[in-house]
Every structure is written in structure tokens, then in C-alpha cells.
């Protein structure tokens, strides 16, 4: 019950949660900061001042594993850009304010970044709770904003005309899973379940109609209390309803692992297709047998997946760069880091093409087309500020983790 908001802040938590050794992270970002400083110490090029970017990661606090992973990519990206001379001779200055996974700190930080620091653009926050509070304020202060959160409500062209998203929405995520089940695996009878959290229930309520619209037969749906230790009755009900696939939506590793354990104990050989946390190290650690992790597919992103054992050339090149820079992968995911680097490079491109005035930036962003990121291909229009393409939301095999990336789930036409 008194869970110190751990459960609460998992709402909309789109990412797998992995244990991060904080010292490594700190040394990583310290190294990044040091190299950033040395980059800035290079002789001032003309009288050009640095371009200030406000950055609101959650580096500490309950929901920080994603922020820490993304941060590695961001620091790396900015450092590389500055080393290569910056943007049109101007260095990029990251002004970092750790939100500590706390919306109140995020609000304070927004005020500082927009009013005092007068940043040209803000990247983040990385967690939904903070983003939900920060977005209206950033919009009010008329600063362009780029963020990687999944909650649908965060992007609204009318309310927040200067906010852009480089990641998929929750609807796209569900759509990707639904597409895999119905179109790739060609399964008709589907069981869709969730825990009783806001994220879980909202997901089910959105995804079930989407499935039905695709012609699938939703034979079972329920919101199950995550604390329930015995899921056998639920699974039996699904089985007798004829379900051919289970789609669970929850970020609670304990709950997800119990589903997998029960499935295994019953010897019921159906695929499990759903939330990214299915593939997290935490879920794995709670499995009773390692083979229970077979035939489990979770959301991922095409460009960060192994297809036939290989990554896309650009992704492979990026991975090699990371390894050369001695970035640890044991406790993070490739797509987090890639997302961070993409953000850095994307912002650099924006500044290069549009300068640092807000109206110009937004005008440019509104017509970005097929920007080739490592994490994803980004496209924006004046009516659509969600930049991630549907086609790149894919499912991956969770038991294939290598160097922070997974195999593409079987069956996709490549």
C-alpha cells in the first residue's frame, strides 16, 4: 500500500526498468560534463555565444532508470557535436536540471530554464508525470520543446503548438502490438489484461476497441490486482475462452512475471505480447524457470532490433561508437541511449537550419521529414507533432538481449 509512489510513478512508464549502477552513471555524466567543459574551453569562435538547451532528465528518484540511460546518449551526442566545432561555430550548452522524478521540481526547473537561463529549446522531461506538469508551462513561456514521453495527452497542436515528440504515443505502442498479433501472427482470439493502475486500465480501454476495429475477437478482458499472488483462476478463464494470445499491459514486473510463471506451470503454450517491461531484467529475475521467458514479445523499435542477427548499418556503427566510448550496456537499453543521441543531433540540425529564434525553430520543425535517427525516423507536420512512424513500432523477442538490444520478433516481412 504505502509504496512511496513507486507504483504511482510507473504510470505511463514506457520503458523497461533495469538496475543502473549509480556510480557508473555519475562517472559517465561526469566524464561527459568534463569533456563538455573542455569543449567549451576551446577558444571562443568569433563573438558567438553558446546555444543554450534546457534539459530536464530524471536522474535520481524512483523512475530514473530511463532518464539515466537517455542521459548517456544526450551527453555523448552533445559532446561529439561540440568537438566538431558546434553548430555554425556556436557551441551547444546543456543546462541540466535533475527533476528527481518529482513534478514539483520539474515545474521549478522550467521556470528557471525559461526565465533565468533563457534557453532556446527544452529537451525533456523524460517521465510522464513531470512532462504533464511541465508542458503547459513551457508552452506558456513560448519555448520550443522536444520530449520522448509516450502519454498521448502530451502533444496537442492547438494547446501546445511548440511541443514536439520524437517517440511513439501510447496509442502507437498498442497499435504496434495489435498489428503484430492480428496481422503478423494472424491470431484471432485475444485476451487483453492489465493491472488496476491508471496506466493499465487506460491502455486496455484504448487498445481493446482498436483490436476489435481490426477484426480481432477479444475473448477475455480484465483489470487484475497486481498484488494478487495467484493468477491461475484468471489464466484458466482465458484458456477456456479460447484465447490464442495474452496481451498484458502493466509496468509491474511482479505482476508480469506471475503471468509468465502461471502460463509456464500450466504448460499453456500461447505467446505473450505486450508492454516493454515484459523484457526487463526485473521480470526475468522473478521467473521461476528461464524457459518461461520464451515466446514473449514486447514493444521495441525497428531500428534498434537485430534482424537475422544483424543491426541496421547505421545502428551498428552507432553501437561501435558507444563501445569505443566505453559506454556500459549491462544495465541499460540501446534504444534509450540512441534516443538521447538522436535528440542531441536533431536539435543540432534544427539550430543549424533555423537559428535559435523560437518562431524559426518551430517553423522548421513543422516540416522535418524522414529525419534519419538511430532510434527512429522522425517526421513532423504542422498538424502532427508526433514524430515517430507507426511502421517502426515493432515487437521484439524478450529473451534475446545482447548489447542492450533484442531480436526482432519472428514473422515480420523485413
Amino acid at each position: 500500500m504505502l509504496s512511496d509512489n513507486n507504483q504511482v510513478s510507473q504510470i505511463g512508464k514506457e520503458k523497461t526498468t533495469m538496475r543502473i549502477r549509480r556510480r557508473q552513471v555519475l562517472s559517465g555524466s561526469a566524464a561527459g560534463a568534463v569533456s563538455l567543459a573542455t569543449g567549451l574551453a576551446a577558444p571562443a569562435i568569433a563573438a558567438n555565444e553558446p546555444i543554450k538547451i534546457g534539459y530536464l532528465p530524471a536522474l535520481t528518484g524512483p523512475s530514473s532508470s530511463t532518464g539515466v540511460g537517455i542521459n548517456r546518449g544526450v551527453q555523448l551526442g552533445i559532446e561529439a557535436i561540440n568537438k566538431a566545432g558546434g553548430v555554425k561555430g556556436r557551441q551547444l550548452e546543456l543546462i541540466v536540471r535533475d527533476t528527481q522524478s518529482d513534478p514539483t521540481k520539474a515545474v521549478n526547473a522550467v521556470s528557471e530554464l525559461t526565465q533565468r537561463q533563457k534557453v532556446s529549446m527544452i529537451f525533456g522531461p523524460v517521465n510522464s508525470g513531470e512532462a504533464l506538469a511541465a508542458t503547459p508551462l513551457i508552452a506558456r513561456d513560448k519555448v520550443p520543446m522536444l520530449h520522448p514521453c509516450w502519454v498521448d495527452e502530451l502533444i496537442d497542436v492547438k494547446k501546445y503548438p511548440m511541443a514536439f515528440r520524437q517517440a511513439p504515443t501510447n496509442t502507437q505502442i498498442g497499435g504496434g502490438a495489435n498489428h503484430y498479433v492480428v496481422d503478423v501472427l494472424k491470431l484471432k482470439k485475444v485476451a487483453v489484461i492489465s493491472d488496476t493502475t491508471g496506466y493499465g486500465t487506460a491502455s486496455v480501454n484504448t487498445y481493446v476497441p482498436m483490436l476489435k476495429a481490426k477484426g480481432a475477437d477479444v475473448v477475455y478482458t480484465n483489470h487484475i490486482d497486481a498484488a494478487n499472488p495467484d493468477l491461475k483462476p484468471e489464466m484458466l478463464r482465458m484458456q477456456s475462452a479460447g484465447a490464442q494470445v495474452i496481451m498484458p499491459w502493466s509496468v509491474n514486473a511482479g505482476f508480469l512475471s506471475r503471468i509468465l510463471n502461471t502460463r509456464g506451470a500450466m504448460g499453456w503454450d500461447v505467446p505473450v505480447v505486450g508492454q516493454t517491461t515484459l523484457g526487463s531484467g526485473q521480470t526475468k529475475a522473478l521467473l521461476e524457470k528461464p524457459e518461461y521467458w520464451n515466446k514473449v514479445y514486447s514493444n521495441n523499435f525497428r531500428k534498434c532490433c537485430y534482424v537475422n542477427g544483424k543491426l541496421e548499418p547505421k545502428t551498428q556503427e552507432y553501437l561501435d561508437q558507444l563501445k569505443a566510448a566505453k559506454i556500459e550496456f549491462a544495465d541499460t537499453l540501446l534504444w534509450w541511449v540512441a534516443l538521447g543521441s538522436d535528440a542531441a543531433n536533431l536539435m543540432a540540425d534544427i539550430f543549424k537550419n533555423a537559428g535559435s529564434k523560437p518562431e524559426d525553430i518551430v517553423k522548421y520543425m513543422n516540416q522535418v521529414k524522414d529525419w534519419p535517427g538511430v532510434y527512429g525516423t522522425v517526421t513532423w507536420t504542422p498538424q502532427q507533432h508526433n514524430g515517430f512512424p507507426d511502421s517502426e513500432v515493432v515487437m521484439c523477442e524478450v529473451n534475446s538481449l545482447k548489447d542492450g538490444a533484442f531480436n526482432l520478433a519472428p514473422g515480420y516481412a523485413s
Partner: protein
Amino acid sequence: MTEITTPIRRSGAGTGWLGRLEGKLSWILLGLAGLALPLLGDSYMGTIATRAYIYWVLGAGLNLVVGYAGQIAIGWVAMLTLGAYTTAALAAGRAGPEWPVYLALLAGGGVGAVFGVVVGLPALRLRTFYFAMTTLGFATIVTQVALAWKDVTGGGVGTPGPVFPWPFDPGWGFYYFCFLLAAIATWMTANIGSSRYGRALVAIRDAEVAAEASGIAKPKLLVMIFLLAGALGGIAGGLFASLQSYITPDAFTFEMSVLFFIGILIGGRGSILGPALGTLILTVLPEIAAPLVQWSTFLYAALLLAIVLVIPGGIADLLDYKNRRPLEQHREIVPRPDLLGRVLGEQSRKMLIALKGIRLHFGGVKAIDGLDLEIHGGEVHGLIGPNGSGKTTTLNVVSGYYRPHEGSLRIDGSHLPFEQPHVRAQWRIARTFQTPRVVGAASVLENVMIGGTVQGHGTFAESMLSLPRHRLDERVLKEAALLALATVGLEQLASVRADRLQHSELRFVEIARALMLRPACLMLDEPAAGLSAEEIRRLGGLIKAISRAGTAVLLVEHHADLIFDICDRVTVLNLGKVLAAGTPEEIRSHREVVSAYLGA
């Protein structure tokens, strides 16, 4: 030497220490700083300052609960949550039609008030730790409900906060709105703090038994405090939702609750300025020390530990220069019985208290085993006997702390109910205690004024808004208290903190407090214990004068000299029974009394 017509010497300026807007200068400076801040044009500082004002609106109310009433309400963030969601949901039309924003804010306050009482009621029955736990449990429940009740609260995704229209629109307009509300909250709670309600709260906190004897009814008072504090918390919640522009359940963390709570304790209990500064500091601190930000809760907790162990009085104690001035070393207590006429007023009829057939046992021990006792107005009735003979127990029965198993208690013929100590004040029955029960943290004058709490006429609301009747009450009470202090000979110590007084002085303070009730019956429980011979002599003179003014005096004592000196009647108890009763001469020579108690 006392002169008959010497006027009462006034003590130094600023008699009150509790709750007074101490250092009016500090408040003026703070106010000016707040008003002038927008001139700097730094909206970031504006955001932080707005947040500090919002936290203080809640904190001002919580200060009354924690600092004054001494209730450890750790989970008070629940009020913020309730107020925030109520205001946001109503203003956004999630629970029916859209409400006008200001009305929604008031509704937030109303919901906070209701639940403040709901959470607070257990405080009447539960001990400190238990109550702390229930507030924690409640805070979690509220968050869980916010998560679950998706239609109204938006569940995990949350809901947008209310936006106030011009002139309080987001930005500096809203800043001034919060500043204004913080100022009002400060003013109202300071008024309560320095009123008889504030003193009564502190009395309940530190000397509950004495508070009851002075007629203070704990339940009603606490309910009003929880109502006010809950309302302030709810309003703070609505403001918070607006500042955040969007609220989700994960914004209302346990850390925030701890912050409010610690801010008050750092500031010091029984003060307004201290907790305000404490809350301000804790709000601003994480912004200044950016690298320390994830250690902020750790630092708050460490600070709390340091305060508890080293300076329990907090910042307020540190700022209390007045009470660091050294006191005169060889102080004498010189009562002035001649003033009793003014203190006690007219005693039109002489009271008669009659105990008949009282039997009371604790488990197997017979504390009182068939007692008949009469206390007449105008007389000093001594009650003596060996330890454990039932003297104090008898006194406790009369003053309403114990219920006997048999027997009756009548005042002038009518029954006086057992076990209702706070009713005694209405009957003008006052008492002192075996160990002085005073509020150490309050001044001597405030302690005495506590005795007159029930004689005030103004309501809680009138005190809160400092309306004329409240101010009249205060004037009258203060005059009466100074008079009472002069009567017992302590008026020069009126503004001194009570815990700096000597033991003997505290005994006289208790008598002054009892005199505030204009008692028709005064019961004294071993008042001479710890006094010097000269002090006992003066005490005796005072007691005798009190009885000659018409009051019935019951004197429980061990000092035989004092008893035989001033008593008109003496009853001797032994093993819960009356061994002998009569005039002092009869008792002194009574054989059994001599052998059981007095010695040859």
C-alpha cells in the same frame, strides 16, 4: 513592605511570547520583500516564492495542529491532495458542470476542512504515536483513491490545474494572490495563537490535566483547529494545482509531507514567525544547493534530528532574546492579600461541598473506604494523613478525575457529576497540583491567563479575525491575570518563560492561575512542598486571606505547622478512612492521630 494603595506594577513591554507576531519588524521586512520581489523581474524567483507562499498557507494551519496543539500529524499532505483535486476537478467540470474558479477554490478549502476534522478526531482518543500512524495511513489512502477514481481525478494521467483569471492570472498576478492568501493565513493563525484558544491549545499540549481543571474542553477546541487547518490545507492545494498547471498523484509525495512537518518543527512550536521562516528555508534550499537535490530529504531528516536533540525549541528559541536576559538572583515572593477583594469579586453565597460515603478502590487496593467530608465556604479545611491514605485521591474525586464506586458529591445540595474535570470551572471550583503543571514554554502571564480561558466571550471566529469582542476579552483577561499575579507577589516575572522559574515560584503561579476562576472553592494539593519556611509563612497568610474572602479552601498538606496554623477544621485520613475530624487543637492532641501520623 507593601502599601495598601500601591498600583499594580506593569511588567515590561510585550508580555506575550506565544503566537504574538513577535518581531513585528521581521514580518514587516518579509512583507516588503514579498511585495518588492516582482521588481526584480525574475520569474524563476517568482515561482519559487509563490511555491513558498502556498506551502506556508498549509503550514500556517498545520502549525496550529503541530506547533500549538502538539499533534504529530505527519500525513497532512493529504489535505493538499484533497484540495488540489477538488479544485481542479470542479474547475474543469469533471464532477458535474464547470465551477467558477474561486468557488472551486473555496470548495477545495471546504473539503479540506471536513477531512481535517475526520483525520483529527482520532487525536482525541489516541496517543501521539497512534495518531501519527493514522495520519500516515490516511495520506496513502487519499493517494490511492486519487489513482483509482479516474473519472474525477484522471487517475494516473492526472488532470489539469485551475487557471485564475485576471488580475490573478499566471505569472505575477498569481504571485500576488498567493502572497495575499499567505498573509491572511499568517494573520488569522497569529490571532488564534495569541488568543485564549492558542493558549488553551498549548495548555492541552503541555499540561493537559491543568487545562482540564481550568475548564478547557479538548474536543471542541481540537475540532475547530482541525477545521481551520484542514481548510487552509485545502486552499493551499487548490493554489498548488494552479501553480503546477497539471496534477498527478505522484506529485504528492511523502517527502512533501515531511517537509511541511519539519518546517514547523525547525521553526519552533508555539511560534508563527519561526515556522514561516522554516517553511521558507526548506522550500528554497533545494534550489540553491542543486547537486544536493537528491539528498534533500536526507538533509531535512538530519536537520530534524539535530533540532530534536540539540535545540528542541527551533529557530523561535534562537530568536528569543528576551528570555535570555538573566533574571534577578535573589527573588522574593511577596503576596499581597489586600488585592484579593478585586481578584475574587463578591462571594455572595458561601459554597458547601459535601462528600458522603465515598468508596473507591484501584484493583485490590482500597484507596478511599467510606469517606464523609464537608468543606465550608469561608473556612480552611485541612486534610492530612500518611502517604497513601487517600488525600490526593479525595481531591481528585472532587475535581473530577476519579469516579468513586459508591457515594455522593454535592455542591450546595445539588449533585456534581463525577469524572468531568472541565465542568468544575463552571462551578468555580479551582485547584492546584502536587507537581506544578505549568506550560514551560509559555510566559508566566500566559500561564495565568490560561486559568481564565473559559471566561472569555468571543468565539473562535472572532478571535481568528481579531474582532472587537476578542480584543476586549484579551484586555480583560490580561488585566485580571496581572492582578492575580500581583496578589501572589509575582507580577515582576510576568513576561518570563515559566520554565525559568524556581519551583516555589511555580507553586504560586498555580495559585494565581486558580484565582482566575474567582473560585468559590479552592483545593490545594501540597502547596508547601519545596518551599522555604518564610515562603510557607507567606503562603499561609495568603491562603487564610482567600478563605476569609468567602472561598471554601481544602488544603491537603504534610506540613503540620502550616495546617495547625491556618486551618479552621482538620480531617485526618488513614488507609482511606477518616481517623479523626475536628478543630486543630482537638486533632493535635488526639491519641490515635499522634501515634499513626504526627508522632509525639
